[in-house]
């Protein structure tokens, strides 16, 4: 009798979470800032995915006759190179679009590796508890207390710059955060009634995890993921700028800033433009993440 009652509680759950998603979308779409941020970020993602179609020029094609052309709104600029050209006469707009593919691609790869691995470790750690949990948490405490940038820089210097190395180093720096976060959510969820109910109703462990636990951790995980993406984009840009990230001539925002650095005084657009792209990316991500947290946490709503 008791278990029947509890099982019915668990089957009620999906309906409620569907309702919650609707509530959330309803609230979120009314938030102009968040919507704008999401639209801008989506545009960046789409232009990165379809960079070959969107970019007006080949990002690698040099046109030495048209070196350091200013953007269209500055005297001497033309519509051929809307945002101007760099030292080698390459189209800055096209390089920025392809640079976005690089930066966001690296970000996506890092989150795919570090995020998925970290989340799984965290969920497992929270679910299993015991010694596995203790050791993992010790290690994570340790790694998180290390100032990451310096270590990333020295490791990149040792193993040499390059996209794959960059992704590996950034993933190693990224997974503990996901693990810790996923674990904390797992811990708070594992004792909740509906999971107990599902277990009593005879649910398999894996099924319990995927059907009942995952939906509940999704929205905080999205917040963490987006914030982490912004951090990865910034770190990648810094490393590339210091020559320890993406290798030239591949277009990447940080690298573009570095390449144009010495010509700052005569061709500031070559520095400004890729920087603005980074800024728009991180800004839209941060606005989106902040607003998302407000939308998904009803207690936060009153505060804003």
């Amino acid at each position, binding site marked *: 009798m008791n278990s029947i009652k509890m099982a019915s509680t668990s089957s009620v759950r999906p309906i409620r979470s569907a309702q919650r998603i609707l509530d959330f979308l309803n*609230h979120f779409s009314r938030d102009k800032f968040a919507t704008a941020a999401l639209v801008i970020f989506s545009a960046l993602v789409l232009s990165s995915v379809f960079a070959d179609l969107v970019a007006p020029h080949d990002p690698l094609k040099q046109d030495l006759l048209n070196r350091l052309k200013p953007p269209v709104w500055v005297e001497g600029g033309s519509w051929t190179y809307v945002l101007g050209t760099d030292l080698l006469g390459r189209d800055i707009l096209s390089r920025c679009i392809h640079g976005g593919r690089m930066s966001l691609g690296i970000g996506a790869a890092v989150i795919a590796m570090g995020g998925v691995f970290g989340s799984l470790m965290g969920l497992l750690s929270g679910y299993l508890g015991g010694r596995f949990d203790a050791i993992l948490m010790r290690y994570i405490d340790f790694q998180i207390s290390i100032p990451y940038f310096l270590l990333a820089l020295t490791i990149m210097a040792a193993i040499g710059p390059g996209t794959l190395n960059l992704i590996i180093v950034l993933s190693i720096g990224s997974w503990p955060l996901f693990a810790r976060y996923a674990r904390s959510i797992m811990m708070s969820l594992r004792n909740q009634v509906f999971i107990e109910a599902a277990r009593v109703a005879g649910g398999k462990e894996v099924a319990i995890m995927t059907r009942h636990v995952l939906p509940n951790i999704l929205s905080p995980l999205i917040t963490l993921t987006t914030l982490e993406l912004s951090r990865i984009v910034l770190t990648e840009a810094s490393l590339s700028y210091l020559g320890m990230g993406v290798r030239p001539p591949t277009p990447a925002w940080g690298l573009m800033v570095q390449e144009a650095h010495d010509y700052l005084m005569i061709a500031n657009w070559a520095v400004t433009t890729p920087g603005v792209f980074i800024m728009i990316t991180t800004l839209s991500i941060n606005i989106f993440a902040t607003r998302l947290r407000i939308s998904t946490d*009803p207690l936060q*709503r*009153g505060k804003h």
Partner: protein
Amino acid sequence: MAEPEISSAGSGSEANGAERPLLSVRDLNVEFTVGESTVHAVNGLSLDLRKGETLAIVGESGSGKSVSMLSVLGLIPQPPGKITNGHVFYDDKDLLSLPSGELRKIRGKEISMIFQDPMTSLNPTMTIGRQITEMLELHLDMKPSQAKERAIELLDLVEIPDPSTRFGQYSIEFSGGMRQRVMIAIALSCNPKILIADEPTTALDVTIQMQIIQVVNELRAEMDMSVIWITHDLGVVAGLADRVIVMYGGRAVEIADSEDLFYRPQHPYSIGLLNSVPSIAEPVSERLIAIEGLPPDLSERRDGCAFYPRCALASDICKNNTPRLEAKGTGGQAACFASPGDVARLTEGSAAQQDNASAQ
């Protein structure tokens, strides 16, 4: 203390020859906005506190009893809370329209509060001594040394052993009951005229509860203070209050001298509350009778009596008309359309039911 003829509260007109109440709440309305919904926490509450009396406000959680008293001192968080209407008269002033600086001079000095959870109501990183002396320095312009001396006296007054050592300690070093005594010492430090006690014993053990009640009762007499005691537990009220206000759904549904309320309740909800009080005199096996149904949803404002869906005496008139407080002949007032005869029968009936239950 019984004053059977006088029933000034709620009517708005002053009763014959009564001295002016110390504190008058008139038609208080408080709302909370959470997301898109608005909760009407207090709906037109009026009450009077007489000089020297202990007035109990009784109701289940969500009845608006705490919110209304927090509103008196402007202590509800705004937003999300909002006082949409009403007056609180004290000393010829309307506290609700007082500039915040003026109101602060009344808080703590004239009207003090103690709260439900002594564990979290004290600042954990400030010595309890400092939490008393800051009041004395603020309101009574005492010098630090003077304030310390007085604070130790106050700790002694609320019967905290070894007060001069305790003065320099932090709240984690105190037990729950001791913390509540500290709260009382803080609240009484400036000899307030009114003490509002917001469920101060709810979080405590029964034996400690009685001690706290005793401390407050003694000090009330000693300091010539009036007390408003908020509780959900009529059992606590019995030996404590001169008058009782029963709140339901943000309104006062019955106001009566406590003896009248206990022996001649005039509102079906009061009857229900009385039945849910465990009595020490009765055998342990006695079954308590819970009020059936759920507390009202205050997010929608509806016509009609808020208690209607749970009421044994509900009739058609209750559905669409809101009953007003009116004198019921017993000296008290109740907001109910049912005839006194029906109410009396309900009282007897439920008493019989309780007897049956205990007989089993």
